[in-house]
């Protein structure tokens, strides 16, 4: 699905660069041979009805304009909402608050009053730990489940049963076992991000084309060679999709988990500001959470692109 979008985007970019290249070529030719009539003039002389000029600018405009309009619509709706509701800050007020917040994102005034930068970093650290542990367990487990149908039979019902459970439901178990808020939050991240990694890796292993495995059999490759030369490269795109889904979910869950566990972290910060009735800060936090999520997604998409191969 995303590949389709990317290919459309890619074609658009190619068209654009071709258009600019053409424009440059046109300028160059005109400078060198001013006497020769332009292509348009020649065509017009032949009585050809010409296409309207200026079409070459359109791709750029079409690319920039829709997102800007969308953003403007959001700000407008927000403004209307704010004007009609007392206590709801306008976009401008929120902007001023954001500027103040980001002027000093890394201050520390005690355990419950730290800059927004620290809060985001603490949340990211929790996600990294929980997610990293989940990858360490989930990816090898996915490989084994995908490769051996016996193990698949063992784990498949368990995964189907546990996967739909909200990770927050596991939080009390984490608190009970670890007797501390921080590991419990990491535990919730671990649980929520392990499922997509197990499932996608297993599916990837199961979908390794039989042709490639036949090649391995005819060449009589060792189990190690099969693993490194055939299974791993073939599964990598599936695995990275799992990683991407996992990190998306992890970032969703950490905010909710931190609201419950308290301490430091962007989720706790949102809840704290709600208790202070500081709504502009909550709105800023929503923007920051969205931004960080977007950056995580982009980083993983570009990683996946670097690691993928083209079929056939």
């Amino acid at each position, binding site marked *: 699905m995303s590949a389709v979008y990317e290919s459309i985007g890619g074609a658009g970019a190619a068209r654009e660069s071709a258009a600019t290249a053409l424009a440059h070529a046109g300028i160059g030719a005109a400078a060198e041979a001013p006497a020769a009539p332009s292509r348009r003039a020649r065509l017009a002389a032949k009585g050809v009805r010409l296409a309207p000029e200026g079409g070459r600018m359109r791709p750029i405009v079409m690319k920039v304009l829709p997102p800007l309009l969308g953003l403007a619509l959001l700000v407008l709706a927000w403004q209307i909402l704010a004007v009609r509701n007392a206590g709801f800050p306008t976009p401008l007020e929120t902007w001023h608050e954001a500027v103040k917040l980001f002027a000093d994102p890394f201050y520390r005034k005690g355990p419950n009053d730290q800059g927004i930068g620290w809060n985001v970093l603490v949340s990211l650290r929790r996600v990294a730990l929980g997610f990293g542990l989940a990858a360490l367990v989930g990816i090898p487990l996915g490989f084994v489940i995908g490769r051996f149908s016996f193990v698949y039979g063992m784990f498949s019902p368990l995964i189907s049963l546990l996967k739909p459970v909200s990770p927050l439901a596991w939080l009390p178990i984490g608190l009970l076992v670890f007797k501390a808020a921080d590991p419990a939050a990491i535990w919730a991240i671990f649980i929520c991000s392990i499922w997509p990694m197990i499932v996608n890796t297993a599916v990837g292993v199961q979908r390794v084309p039989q042709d490639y495995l036949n090649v391995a059999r005819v060449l*009589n*490759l060792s189990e190690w060679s099969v693993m490194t*030369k055939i299974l791993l490269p073939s599964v990598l795109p599936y695995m990275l999709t799992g990683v991407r889904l996992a990190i998306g979910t992890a970032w969703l869950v950490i905010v909710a988990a931190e609201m419950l566990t308290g301490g430091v972290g962007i989720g706790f910060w949102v809840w704290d500001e709600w208790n202070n009735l500081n709504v502009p800060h909550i709105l800023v936090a929503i923007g920051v959470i969205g931004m960080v999520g977007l950056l995580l997604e982009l980083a993983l998409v570009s990683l996946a692109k670097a690691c993928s*191969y083209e*079929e*056939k």
Partner: protein
Amino acid sequence: MASKFIDINKVEMRFGEFQALSDINLTVEQGEFITLIGHSGCGKSTLLNLIAGLNRPSSGALVCNGREIAGPGPERAVVFQNHSLLPWLTCFENIYLAVDRVFGRTETRPQREERTWQALELVGLAAAGGKRPNEISGGMKQRVGIARALSMEPKVLLMDEPFGALDALTRAHLQDELMRIVAATGATVVMVTHDVDEAVLLSDRVVMLTNGPAATIGGIVKVRLERPRDRLALAQDPLYLDYRTSVLEFLYQRQGRPAQRFAA
């Protein structure tokens, strides 16, 4: 010994309830070029997979070079229908993987690399060694597949409709190249095809399978045409046309089309 290089004896193949092959008896001499021809779904690829060792027969025995075929191995190299090159490796690396496996213990790395380049040169693709399969054409991919199979210096070359997915011009070109390579290496070849001209042009014997289920060998045409063979000269050759007609007769009169048979 040499007269019975591959010996297929009373081989039967069932997939569950479905009987694919029954009572297949065939011997192949060393250096012989055999094609298996028949309507699609008759089990020619199944028979090839049995010789490759990718499947085991339900009953009967297959012997290659005095040894029962117990599984796949590099001495019986396979050229797959869809080339089956690994897309994440370059053409060179795809072939090197095979060379490394067969000669890894006996030869040094430069020797193995030299072998890989030789295989690429044999199919005229030395320039494409650094390219990945998705960067070259279908015909080139198929040639890399053949080069990979030949690089292992197999005793038998097994080809499963190797040119089936190619256009007629590329196919003709690769057939000529294959004849040249086989003449140069003296390889024993078993090839599956559904192209009558290809079968008669390339083979020493055309083995014709009856329609499945329970397909068996319905007839063998021995092609006594001088080598090297030239496709243009053969197009007028009465002997060539005779062979061609007898294969066509078998396929369309004696066996009919499966669809028609089921409809009747």
